[in-house]
């Protein structure tokens, strides 16, 4: 975890309100583990005040020594709309890499990644790593409508089987991506999921009876991202069955479906 001075290399608008942002840091972030995130903020501003948690999309340097990386985001509020107006050369600051990311040590020979909307971004790094190590990876990518499925090409370019879902049927299969998952839960597989809370809950309810404990990446409001503000807690179940609060930023953002107290 480092405090980084960042400059924007490029920013590209994709579709209605989605953006692909490439950033360069003044110093190395070290290795960005798949599923980690960064808190991105505006230097010298008090409004918006707080940085925003953003999953790393791509690490753009070789040798696990990242200074350049990309972020995918959707402009939905004051902070992200301001970010959307930034141009190449503009300065940002960041705290990261943060969180534990996906547990890559327990991944099986076949993995299904389930992405809801902008929840697609933390899948690029693990997908690339798994494909390079010869494992089989499939992507189920769902959103409200076709215009929200903006990062499909990046994943197809990795050579992944990709199945699209939209709630309105404008492209791919009509329906929720979490419903589509049920038909693919055969054999010894791993499931990784990132998206809205309701989707993660449905995925857990689908996976656990099939004997698969999904890894889920949570998105929460965060003020600091490194464990002091205690604003991002979720409830998990202890071994003894008692529930307790844990910090999504520090103990997460990835949790096993079986440990989350829904």
């Amino acid at each position, binding site marked *: 975890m480092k405090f980084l001075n960042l400059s924007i290399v490029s920013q590209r608008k994709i579709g209605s309100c989605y953006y692909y942002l490439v950033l360069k840091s003044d110093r190395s972030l070290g290795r960005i583990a798949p599923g980690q995130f960064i808190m991105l903020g505006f230097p010298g501003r008090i409004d918006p*005040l707080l940085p925003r948690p953003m999953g790393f999309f791509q690490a753009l340097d070789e040798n696990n020594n990242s200074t350049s990386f990309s972020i995918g985001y959707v402009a939905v509020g004051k902070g992200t709309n301001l970010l959307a107006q930034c141009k190449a050369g503009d300065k940002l600051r960041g705290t990261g890499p943060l969180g534990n990311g996906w547990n890559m040590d327990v991944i099986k020979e076949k993995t299904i990644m389930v992405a809801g909307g902008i929840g697609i971004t933390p899948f690029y790094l693990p997908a690339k790593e798994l494909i390079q190590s010869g494992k089989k990876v499939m992507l189920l990518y769902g959103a409200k409508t076709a215009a929200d499925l903006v990062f499909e090409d990046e994943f197809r370019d990795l050579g992944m089987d990709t199945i699209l879902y939209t709630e309105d049927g404008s492209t791919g299969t009509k329906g929720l991506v979490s419903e589509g998952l049920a038909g693919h839960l055969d054999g010894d597989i791993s499931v990784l999921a990132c998206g809205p809370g309701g989707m993660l809950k449905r995925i857990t309810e689908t996976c656990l009876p099939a004997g698969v404990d999904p890894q889920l990446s949570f998105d929460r409001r*965060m003020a600091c991202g490194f*464990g002091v503000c*205690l604003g991002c*807690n*979720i409830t998990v179940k202890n071994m003894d069955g008692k529930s307790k609060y844990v910090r999504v930023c520090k103990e997460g953002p990835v949790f096993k479906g079986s440990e989350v107290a829904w």
Partner: protein
Amino acid sequence: MSVPDLSVNIGSLALKNPIMPASGTFGYGTEFADFFDASLLGAVVLKGVSRTQVEGNPCPRIYETPAGMLNAIGLQNIGVEALVRDKIPVLKNIGMPVIANIWGRSEDEYVEVAAFLEDSKDISALEMNISCPNVSKGGLEFGSNPQVAAGLTSRVRKVTSKQLWVKLSPSAPSIAELARAVEDAGADAVSLINSIPAMAVDVETRKPQLANLIGGLSGPAIHPIAVRMVYQAARAVKIPVIGIGGIASVEDVLEFMIVGAAAVQVGTMSFANPLIFGELIDGIYKYCERNGIERLRDIIGSLDYARD
């Protein structure tokens, strides 16, 4: 001119500079270790502890507002025994004063926590929180009435030989009266302000932005209110006043000191910029150099009322 002297005193406690983190924004003192050497601080103020562990409020607990944020964490903490067992040993070699922030759900609990810490040699002072807006007990009910605040202060005073700071609420009808009441009851310093009770609503869903409905507003938005209250408190008491509230710049620190604060605490802004502590210390040093100030403490309460 000689090198500016940034040291300040809170009673008998000497701080090498006036910059402290505010309780609840610095964890138990080690969470910022990746960013900077905590020994550069004047002191550390730890997350508030109660007698036993507290889980705090349900989420969502935070919400950003213009130049500020709401929080309703609910004083989640590990309890005073775990603090002494697990956290204080890690801090004791940092080489600066450690301030424990304490609270309770009853007057008895405040007394128990203070008594428990009495033998902890590595804690220099207790900051007693009588002003958290986010817990039904242990918060404002002790902090908005001067008689109640004074009664609690004198009970805790009896069980601790450490410095006793009392953290005051901006909701007090008269901050001057409240500050005087706890001074008379034996407080060694007052710190203010705690966050301001506040609320926000999602107009699309018509739900409150915080599960607790009401939270505490902090951040730059509250700074001018804090300056006014520090000014009023400093004029009312002889004990040191510690300024808290929305510090985001060197000017904000100096403003507090000029209206009478002997030291300051920095909270919300360090979430956005974890390096702010070092930047502020550097900035006040340069301010002293630029203005020929040999001892920073000479600016405390130096407000110039004369109109040009």
